[in-house]
């Protein structure tokens, strides 16, 4: 393929992924509000458009038209930078996620990196800077507390997250996410969730912590920190935090699907092989999206069911329970593989 063709196609794919991601994030916000309302015995937004489906659009218009206001005594540069940084990892992780097999022979991943998993973990850890910067730059006590909690929490759970995927690498023999998806083909029980259930549980828990979702939403903690790191933000900057939270959630869901739930594959009807026709390729993308949506649904459902951890419980869980489990799982998997070889 010529260079110009490569660049055009990559840009097209990036634009498609970005558009898909942002619309998914908008949909996730809608579903969050609706599901939350239903669980609480309410109806939720149902006025804008049929069933309130246009609510995200109304919110977007509102935040865009609002005055972009920064309180006095904030550190202006970091204050403006923080929302962008918070939004960045959610969008950047998607670059390495294979969201389909191929369309007319064109592989459905923006960047087929050989170190895709490492890249995803690395980019993910940048996300904490958004929150910490917001807490620092706001020059106000609640955001500051949120930022401090966030740095402690995300750094703690990042260790578990990184260690929990090591057994996967041992099994797949590659850091390339495409390869990891391929090695899950050939039957439902080849999915990593069944081969590495403990790693799956650890990764999911760590994902909740990384995306600041309940029960790990200590940085926000509406009841004690009145919203935490984003207290001083309004209009579009707040919307970017909000969107970033959902983008991170979707990116985490995409990672869970890719690593543990077979990515774009389904173990039936030969859907776990590379697509031969255009329509099978499209079907693979649809399967991937459906799986991501189901995982996002799980995220939302959990949020309205669980109380928040206390700070000491959070630390105890992260360092004294999850980390040893992840290490043990890694050593055990390595030992079994070595004994088999």
């Amino acid at each position, binding site marked *: 393929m010529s260079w110009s063709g490569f660049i055009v196609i990559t840009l097209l794919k990036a634009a498609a992924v970005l558009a898909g991601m942002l619309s998914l994030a908008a949909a996730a916000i809608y579903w969050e509000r609706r599901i939350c309302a239903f669980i609480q015995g309410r*109806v939720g937004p149902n006025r804008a458009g049929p069933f309130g489906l246009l609510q995200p659009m109304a919110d977007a218009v509102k935040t865009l038209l609002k005055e972009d206001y920064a309180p006095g005594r904030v550190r202006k540069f970091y204050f403006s930078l923080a929302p962008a940084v918070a939004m960045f990892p959610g969008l950047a992780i998607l670059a390495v996620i294979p969201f389909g097999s191929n369309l007319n022979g064109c592989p459905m991943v923006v960047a087929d990196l050989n170190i895709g998993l490492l890249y995803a973990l690395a980019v993910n850890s940048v996300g904490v800077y958004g929150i910490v910067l917001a807490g620092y730059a706001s020059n106000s006590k609640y955001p500051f507390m949120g930022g401090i909690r966030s740095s402690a929490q995300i750094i703690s759970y990042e260790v578990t997250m990184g260690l929990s995927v090591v057994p996967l690498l041992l099994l797949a023999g590659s850091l390339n996410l495409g390869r990891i998806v391929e090695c899950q083909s050939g039957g439902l029980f080849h999915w990593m969730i069944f081969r590495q259930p403990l790693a799956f549980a650890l990764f999911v828990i760590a994902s909740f912590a990384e995306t600041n979702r309940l029960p790990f939403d200590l940085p926000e903690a509406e009841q004690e920190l009145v919203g935490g790191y984003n207290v001083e933000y309004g209009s579009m900057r707040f919307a970017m935090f909000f969107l970033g939270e959902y983008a991170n959630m979707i990116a985490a869901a995409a990672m869970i699907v890719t690593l543990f739930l077979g990515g774009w594959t389904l173990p039936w009807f030969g859907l776990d092989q590379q697509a031969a026709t255009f329509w099978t390729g499209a079907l693979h993308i649809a399967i991937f999206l459906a799986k991501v949506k189901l995982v996002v649904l799980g995220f939302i459902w*959990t949020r309205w*069911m669980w109380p928040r951890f206390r700070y000491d419980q959070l630390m105890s869980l992260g360092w004294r329970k999850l980390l040893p489990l992840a290490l043990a799982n890694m050593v055990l998997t390595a030992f079994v593989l070595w004994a088999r070889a």
Partner: protein
Amino acid sequence: MIVQRKRMNWWERLYLSAVFSGLWVTVRRFFRRKVTMQYPEERWVPPEGYRGMPCLVRDQEGHVKCVCCQLCEFICPPKAIRITPPGPDGPPPDRPAAEKAPLEFKIDLLRCIFCGLCEEVCPEEAIFMRRDHQFTAERREELVFDKEELLRRGGTHHDRALKWKRKEEEAKAQGAWVEPAWSPAETAGAIPERQEAGGGK
């Protein structure tokens, strides 16, 4: 008092049992009937006897029941009621036996405390607390209702006694009926024409 906590077994200590029962609870809630009332379309109907807006009523023959005794005006704690009596030269009431009818009758809903004393004190059963309780207006003046508006909102009170009509009939039967100096038909134009009663009482 010391509450003895039940010792949890390993499954309960694992925290996962609580997770699953929590998920089950939220799923059940998800499919439960919703309690939200879609406000402008659906409205809460207050129970019988609710003290909402005070209104004037007409009887089933279309006469204004108020005889302008001004007891409600005197008893009203926040002085929300203002009655203008007809005076010696004012227009006569639309019932021959009754002595007077109010020339103007104003209730300021912004002052009203919905205590219901006016309804209680009224000897003619001419003022009632209706169940209306939602008032919106852009200016204060819009919430000062005059006689016409109060009568329109009050509607018809189906009065079994019809006191003034019976008095007239009794006086006629005893031959003690004195024809008033004016005829209700002549003075019909002096007081505003009655309207169709809005909403039954």
